[in-house]
């Protein structure tokens, strides 16, 4: 303490002295305190210089998913937050504070925090229109220069492609996370049902349809009358089916970017097929009641053994744990990933995520943009992101063939259930920036279901398509995005549940409505933006 207290000589008030000494104590393990005569009320300069003065408080947004296992410590005071404080905060004289935001209302809550000027220093969202709106309203800090100065590790991990997604009108207002795995969704089927009926794995859309019909008629396994041959029907998870009906030779990049899916050639046929599945009782007949509202419904049906096939987020059955539940409920059950939706020439096009994950940004009201970039850069050091994604070696994971293998123990479950919310620069586990197979292996988080994971990722990426993007904010989209999304849901359920004879009329009428309530405006503006960006 002697060495440190010298620094307080320059006319400080008693209160300030006592708080600073307390702070000084906690930074002792930094061990590089340099006696200097600078007045301590200068802003602390983390990472490069010795800690001095009052610590700055860095406030970081944290999703609260309300999924803390019983017995686990609170999400604002656990292994992760301590790791951050001890390895980043203390050496840099920064007090890191996590501010929770409910996951399901993140955008609304973020808007309120921003409007009140109380947003944390580092905030994030997945919602592109929200970021564009903040940019347009002039509420974000330009992170470009800071990134050049302090973000070398971060730049190396994210790469230019990802970083470009965070540039708006050429300015780096946001830092996008890197999405390690791009597949959106993968279809899977009950292998044991196929075996029972002596059917092969369906390899084309038609074979898939025949298989569903067989499931409906023969009611294999323990399904009975409630059998749902194909479940989890919603606009997002039906994209592989939808994409396989599109007439790709007639679709240009501009169309893919600007034209709403509803108008793309072939889209109507995709929905005619879904309509047929509905009217023949091959999909969940009450899907409109739970769609986008109650994800549990489909998982429950699957666990209860009445679902024959479904399309889910790639590897979701493993990482959300319901694959294990299915196997627990029925010892004979076996789910295998499949890739059944084919174009006439045998391709299986499906949507891939763009390589960026959530957007991280710093509100203009924050004074700590520099510390934010330093924090993210610290996180981009492999030692740190591996710790934030996997915990402590020997306790919660082991290194197997250069890949962290999470252990199946209580401590791992209590530590790692929400790791992505801390390791925010990555979406998915990362081990290597060069060897993609290591990363796939790293994401096979549960060794018991490794095969399922690897097959899911492979089939979910096969013939994948990334929709083109343009960084210019589309004003009409900012304005109408929510309305159009609602309308999409409405058309989706209406045309699928229509009587076959009404299908054509209804489809045209609804799509016409969609264009009238903003769809046309969005399309026109997007087309212009696409031309301009060329």
């Amino acid at each position, binding site marked *: 303490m002697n060495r440190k207290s010298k620094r307080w000589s320059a006319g400080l008030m008693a209160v300030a002295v006592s708080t600073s000494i307390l702070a000084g104590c906690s930074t002792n393990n930094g061990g590089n305190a340099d006696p200097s005569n600078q007045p301590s009320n200068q802003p602390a300069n983390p990472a490069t210089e010795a800690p001095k003065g009052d610590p700055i408080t860095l406030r970081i947004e944290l999703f609260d998913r309300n999924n803390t296992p019983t017995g686990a410590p609170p999400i604002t005071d656990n292994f992760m937050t301590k790791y951050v404080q001890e390895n980043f905060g203390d050496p840099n004289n920064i007090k890191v504070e996590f501010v929770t935001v409910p996951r399901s209302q993140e*955008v*609304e809550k973020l*808007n309120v925090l*921003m*409007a009140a000027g109380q947003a944390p220093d580092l905030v994030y969202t997945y919602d592109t*229109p*929200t970021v564009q*709106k*903040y940019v347009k*309203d*002039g*509420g974000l800090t330009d992170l470009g220069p800071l990134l050049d100065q302090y973000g070398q590790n971060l730049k190396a991990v994210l790469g230019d492609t990802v970083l470009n997604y965070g540039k708006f009108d050429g300015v780096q207002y946001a830092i996008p996370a890197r999405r390690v795995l791009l597949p959106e969704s993968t279809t899977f089927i009950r292998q044991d049902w196929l075996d029972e009926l002596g059917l092969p794995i369906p390899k084309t859309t038609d074979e898939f349809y025949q298989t569903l019909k067989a499931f409906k008629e023969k009611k294999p396994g323990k399904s009975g009358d*409630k059998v749902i041959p194909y479940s989890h029907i919603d606009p997002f998870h039906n994209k592989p089916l939808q994409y396989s009906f599109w007439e790709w030779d007639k679709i240009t990049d501009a169309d893919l970017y600007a034209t709403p899916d509803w108008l793309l050639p072939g889209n109507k046929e995709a929905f005619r097929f879904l309509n047929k599945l509905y009217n023949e009782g091959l999909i969940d*007949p*009450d899907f*409109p*009641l*739970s*769609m986008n*509202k109650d994800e549990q419904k489909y998982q429950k049906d699957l666990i209860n053994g009445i679902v024959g096939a479904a399309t889910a987020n790639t590897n979701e059955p493993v990482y959300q744990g319901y694959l294990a539940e299915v196997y627990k409920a029925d010892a004979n059950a076996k789910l295998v990933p499949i890739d059944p939706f084919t174009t006439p020439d045998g391709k299986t096009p499906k949507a891939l995520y763009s390589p960026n994950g959530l957007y991280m940004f710093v*509100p*203009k*009201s924050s004074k700590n943009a520099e510390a934010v970039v330093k924090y993210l850069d610290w996180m981009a050091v492999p030692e740190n992101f591996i710790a934030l994604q996997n915990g402590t070696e020997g306790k919660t994971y082991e290194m197997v063939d250069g890949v962290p293998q999470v252990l199946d123990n209580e401590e791992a479950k209590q530590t790692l259930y929400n790791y992505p919310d801390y390791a925010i620069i990555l979406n998915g586990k990362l081990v290597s920036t060069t060897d993609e197979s290591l990363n796939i292996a790293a994401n096979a988080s549960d060794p018991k279901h490794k095969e399922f994971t690897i097959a899911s990722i492979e089939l979910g990426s096969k013939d994948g398509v990334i929709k083109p993007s343009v960084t210019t904010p589309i004003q009409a989209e*900012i*304005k109408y*995005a*929510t*309305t159009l999304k*609602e309308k999409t*849901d*409405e058309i*989706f*359920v*209406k045309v699928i*549940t229509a009587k076959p004879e009404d299908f054509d009329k209804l489809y045209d009428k609804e799509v016409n409505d969609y264009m*009238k*309530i903003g769809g046309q405006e969005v399309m026109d503006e997007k087309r212009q933006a696409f031309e301009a960006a060329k």
Partner: protein
Amino acid sequence: MAITTKPVRRTAPRLPFRSLLRDWQLYILILVPLAFFVTFKYVPMFGAVIAFKDYNIFKGIWGSPWVGFETFKEIFQMQGFYLALRNTFMLNLLDLLVSFPLPILLAIVLNELRIQWFKRGAQMVLYLPHFISWVIIGGIAIQLFATNTGIVNNVLKSLNLEAIPFLTEPVYWVFTYLGIGIWQSAGWGTIIYLAALTGINKDLYEAADVDGASRLRKIWHITLPGIKPTIIILLIINIGHMASIGFDRPFVLSNPLVTDVSEVISTYVYKTGIQSARYTIATAIGLFQAVIGLIFLLSADLISRKVNDQGIW
């Protein structure tokens, strides 16, 4: 103020202040609720200026530029707004027709019950649904009324009857919406009437008994006139709420198949205003709604004064 009042206070009698001085404890007591209303009801009203501004959350209310009635023009051009407005009026009107008389009927029936324990028990059972959150009711509704997997339709199907699309056909959905509303709130609505019923002079009933009046006669000539003022006040208040509608009930019961009838102003504001962070739109619709509500309230009051010589003030 101080300069002008001082000489006045010296010369004029202090009549207006005398009661204040005498009952100062009472005035202090009323300050607390007054402060509540000023802070939470009147101060936020200034936020309504957002409706006339191009509100930018980073510039704040005063920093954002004025746009006059632009926002209102935009709202009146939105197709969805008219649909939401129509549905709000439609659902509220039907609710008024069906759900308003029922608590009165229930209260009278409960009042006629002579067996005390049964009356209490019945009251209790009728109140209970009021305490269940709409989210839970929404879940129960799907379990019961889903077209293909709901319990009710499973029973109908086992009896070889056609399944009824309670939640998926607009017309049926409106009935389901009304029915569930009645189930949830009718019992609770009886409380005020029951309280009013206890205020009726028992002598009137005894006199009617002496005159040999039947039970229905007594209800018609004593009970109903006795609670008439309560009925009228509640009716006026309900009409004042015509343009506003709760959020939870239409939101949890709706699904994409019935948005044509289930999209109401509150859910519309939530989607276009709050979820898309277009606070100007949300505020403008809210303001519009308040003005319509005020017009309804005042006209209902006026009509009631003309016809019954009785209003809420």
